Each structure stands twice: as structure tokens, then as C-alpha cells.
């Protein structure tokens, strides 16, 4: 039964889950940085920067992640010696960065032009207005899509198993190869992913709720007769 694999293998899978989590967290953090930079390239008035961002997004979105991981992993280890972890993390960051860039770009462009104009009319410079006024609103608006992309990122991190990492899926593969109980082993692996993502989703939803109430207590808004 599944239960005995769940019980007998849990130290191994917990360790592998921890690696998956660490890898995903580092990759997504880097990915957000890459994404923000590429997003600014895309909305920039410089044609060169637009073009760079366009190429980046086209190439990343137009090729499978597994191919990107393989190219980056073997490419990077040819140039500089990087640990497996960092090669995997960078590959995932580059990949997720392209999607995150589009999320950020959409969120920034969805903020009413009047916000930037009002900021500028008060004497704020473009970077100051971006940082103090536009980005905080854009981040809030990006959270649902960003959460979604993070979930995809966590699941997609399983592909690093194919360059030999012992993450959750990699561990599952080698376990199944040695115990010959593929169905049960893979179901256990699936269960670990499910639990991680459920917990993560819970926190994203809470964050969303918190930020929504941080703007205005909704209950009061209803019985405030002058509210526009």
C-alpha cells in the first residue's frame, strides 16, 4: 500500500521536499528581480531596451523549460564551475523571469496614468514616483497572478531532476527505480507537492486579503453614506 511507502520513506522525501522548496524560493526570488528589470525594459522609451526584453521573452516563452534547463546547466558548467543547485536555480530563474516580467509589466501599465501625472505634478522625479506611488499599487495588483506563477514555478522545478538533481521528483524517480513500486511512489511524490502548494496557496490568499483590507475596511465602506 501507499501508506508503507509514505511511512518508510518520509525522511528521504522530506529532505527532497526541502531541496525543492529551497531551489524554488531562490529561483523565484531571482526570477522576480529579472522580471522587474525586463518589465522596465519593456515599458522603457528606449527602443534598444524594448528589443532586448522582447527577444528575451520570445525565446524563453518559445522553448520548453526542459531544453532551457539542459542548455543552461551544461552551458553554465562548461564556462564556470557552478554547483548543481545554482545551475538549476539560475535556469529556473531565467525561465520564470520572463513570465514574471509580463505580470509586472501588465500590473504597472494597469495603474491609471493619473497616478504618475499627479506624482510628477508634485515635483517627484520619474524613479521616485515609480517607487513610491506606482510600484506599490502594481505589486498589490500583481499578487494573484504572481501567486499563480509561483505555483507553476514550484511544480516546474521538478524538471531539474533530469539534470541529476535529487529534488522531490528526482528522489521519487530513484526510489521507484529501486523499489519497483512506481505507482505508489509517484503518488506519494504527488502528495508532497500537493501539500506544499496547498499551504502556499493559503498564504497567498491571506496576503491578498490583508492587502485588500489594508486599503480600506470594507465593512465600514458599506454603511458610509457619503462613500462615492
Amino acid at each position, binding site marked *: 500500500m501507499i501508506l508503507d511507502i509514505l511511512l518508510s520513506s518520509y525522511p528521504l522525501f522530506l529532505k527532497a521536499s526541502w531541496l525543492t522548496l529551497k531551489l524554488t524560493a531562490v529561483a523565484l526570488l531571482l526570477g522576480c528581480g529579472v522580471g522587474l528589470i525586463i518589465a522596465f525594459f519593456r515599458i522603457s522609451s528606449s527602443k534598444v531596451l524594448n528589443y532586448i526584453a522582447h527577444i528575451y521573452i520570445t525565446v524563453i516563452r518559445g522553448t520548453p523549460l526542459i531544453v532551457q534547463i539542459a542548455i543552461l546547466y551544461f552551458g553554465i558548467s562548461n564556462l564556470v564551475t557552478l554547483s548543481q543547485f545554482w545551475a538549476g536555480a539560475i535556469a529556473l530563474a531565467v525561465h520564470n523571469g520572463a513570465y514574471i516580467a509580463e505580470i509586472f509589466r501588465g500590473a504597472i501599465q494597469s495603474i491609471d496614468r493619473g497616478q504618475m*501625472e*499627479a506624482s510628477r505634478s*508634485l515635483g517627484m522625479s520619474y524613479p521616485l514616483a515609480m517607487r513610491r506611488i506606482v510600484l506599490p499599487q502594481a505589486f498589490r495588483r500583481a499578487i494573484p497572478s504572481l501567486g499563480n506563477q509561483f505555483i507553476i514555478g514550484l511544480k516546474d522545478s521538478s524538471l531539474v531532476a533530469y539534470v541529476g538533481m535529487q529534488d522531490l521528483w528526482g528522489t521519487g524517480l530513484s526510489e521507484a527505480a529501486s523499489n519497483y513500486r512506481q505507482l505508489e511512489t509517484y503518488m506519494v511524490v504527488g502528495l508532497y507537492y500537493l501539500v506544499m502548494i496547498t499551504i502556499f496557496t493559503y498564504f497567498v490568499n491571506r496576503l491578498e486579503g490583508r492587502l485588500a483590507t489594508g486599503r480600506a475596511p470594507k465593512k465600514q465602506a458599506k454603511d458610509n453614506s457619503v462613500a462615492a
Partner: protein
Amino acid sequence: MIEVKHLVKSFGSLTVLKGVTLTVQEKEVVVLLGASGSGKSTLLRCLNFLEVYDEGEVWVGGTQIDPYKSNLNQFRAEVGMVFQHFNLFPHKTVLENVIEAPIHVKRMNVAEAKELAYELLKKVNMQDKADVYPDMLSGGQKQRVAIARALAMKPKIMLFDEPTSALDPELVGEVLQVMKQLAKEGMTMIVVTHEMGFAREVADRAVFMDNGQILEQGPPNTFFENPQNERTKQFLGSIR
């Protein structure tokens, strides 16, 4: 105080300003009138460089402002602007909206900025709502906060771009009241508006724009009672 010479501005093939020349004296209240599309909002936006004109000059207090060389941020800090759609910062409370620019642009310390903000909020009668977020406010209240926010930079001139056009009729009065008060205190103001009552009562000069040009201007009583230009007569007739 502020002088524009032969301003020309096009959006693509559409020329919105066709050589506008206008001088506004210190403490003068000028009302810009005209049908929509006549270029009055664009003129106002050129005055603080939210739009950059294609040709012409803007002079303020004897110096020419060059959109590509002058320190526009510093210049804009001295020109307050109030927008039709308020443009308050929704993620900040009323108080935070008002203190934002004094703290981050003028480097005023927080206590001083707050003191100034409370004073200005009191002036626009919004002191009770200091800790409320903008989406809890009515349009009139939002616009009064927006005025306080602009005043917090201690501007030398205030530009109003249809400040009451997005308001429910019963909320227009409270905003006009604040603007009248400002005019009485000697603020230099350029107001794009459709409020003829305000124009007659408060303005020192009414300027009528049509098709990207100034057609007629004068003191409100002569302007409204005895317009000279055919197009002005037509416009004034249509809104009566």
C-alpha cells in the same frame, strides 16, 4: 508671473494648440473657457510640462523654462495642479497623500510635514478624515484633499483642470468654496472650468479658447455681458 508665447502642440496629425500667447499676472485668477477639444486642458498641461509643446516658450518670473534643460521637477514642485479625476494615491491615507511630496521632494521632516498637512486639511475642512483612505471619500471630499495635497508644496501658482466636472452637482459647491477662498488669499490661479458662476464671481479675467486659439479675453463682466466674437457669443449662448 507666467507667460506663454506662441505655443504649438500637436498629437500626431491633430494640432491642438495653434500658437497660444497668454500672460498671467501674480495673484490673478484666470478662467479658461471653451468647448471640449478647444485645447484648454492641453494648454494647462503644457504649463507644467505634463505635455511638452512642439513650439513656443514658457516664461516664469522672468526665466524661460526649457523642457529639455531646466530642472522640471523643481519647477513642477512650485506649480500646483488639481485634476478632474482627483488622482489621489489610493494606497495612502488622506494625511499620507498630503505629506508625501513635502517629505520626499522637499525633504521636510515628518513632524513638520504633518503639522502643515493638518493645517491645510483644516483649511479645506477635511481634518476629520486625515486617517481615512481615499476610496472612503465622496468626490467633493477627494477633490478638497487633492487641493490640500497640491498646496502642501507651497506652490506659487495653482492650475485647476476641470476640478468639478467629475462631481455630482450637489458636491460642486464645497470645492468651489475652497477655490474662492484660495483666490481671496491672493493665490495665482488658472482654472479650466465650465462653472460660469464661479468665472463671473471669482475670475479677474475670462479667456475663451476655440480650436486651439484664444479668441477673446477680458474682465468677466464685459466678457459675459458684451462678448465681441461671434464664436464666443455662440458658446455663451449655448450654455445659458
